[in-house]
């Protein structure tokens, strides 16, 4: 599966935040709140990012295959901004991982932005947003 190339400007932290064991995300009402909560937990101050928005239309919404990739990242967290519960998954890559990339299948309640944030070893964060269109996914049943 080919990847979209995007460019980002990340602002790194001077003081690396202590990296606590992964707590489970508490329920957040919106993706913005969930993302803010994640940044707070990880001691993030702020970042500037420049994003392309890719247009895409999938023919189903209950099973959308998503690939995330962030070379060198310690972990990648994914959000579905338009889902009632925006949390999707957190991938934490261990010493035996061969790449900082993963593919999974997710549910999307409607056309929406899927957000991925990567935490880099130097304490910086990188964010990507992809707008995914989905159709109602087949007649009948």
């Amino acid at each position, binding site marked *: 599966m080919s990847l979209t190339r995007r460019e980002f400007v990340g602002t790194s932290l001077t003081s690396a935040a202590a990296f606590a064991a992964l707590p489970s*995300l508490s329920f957040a009402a919106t993706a913005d709140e969930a993302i803010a909560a994640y940044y707070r937990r990880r001691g993030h101050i702020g970042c500037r990012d420049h994003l392309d928005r890719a247009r895409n239309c999938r023919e189903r919404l209950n*099973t959308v295959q998503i690939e995330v990739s962030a070379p060198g990242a310690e972990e990648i967290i994914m959000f579905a901004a338009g889902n*009632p519960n925006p949390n999707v*998954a957190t991938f934490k890559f261990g010493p*035996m*991982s061969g790449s900082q990339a993963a593919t*999974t*299948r997710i549910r*999307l309640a409607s056309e929406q932005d899927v957000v991925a944030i990567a935490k880099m070893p130097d304490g910086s964060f990188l964010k990507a947003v992809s707008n995914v269109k989905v159709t109602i996914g087949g007649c009948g049943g």
Partner: protein
Amino acid sequence: MAENVTPRVRAPREASVGEVVSVRTLISHPMESGMRRDGDGNVIPRSIINRFVCTFNGEVVVDVTMEPSIATNPYFQFEAKVMESGTFNFTWYDDDGSVYEDSSDITVS
């Protein structure tokens, strides 16, 4: 309580030292989100697999925290770097306390 949960994994049986190999996993599970209501309007309680871990010879390849937006019958694909022969262990943790396990051996030469 999820019934008939069947894990499946696919990893290569052989690789060369230092090779990056692709690993895929699929497990049958309804991943009830806790957002749906039944015919009487009552919320169907959440019942999902909330964590998936793959290790190789005891060391973590990937540790995934899973949320209700993960689709029914969760699927993962990722890569591991193998330096020696050994065993991949795969563990899925269910909300109901169930733990599902599978493993796959690989010969590295």
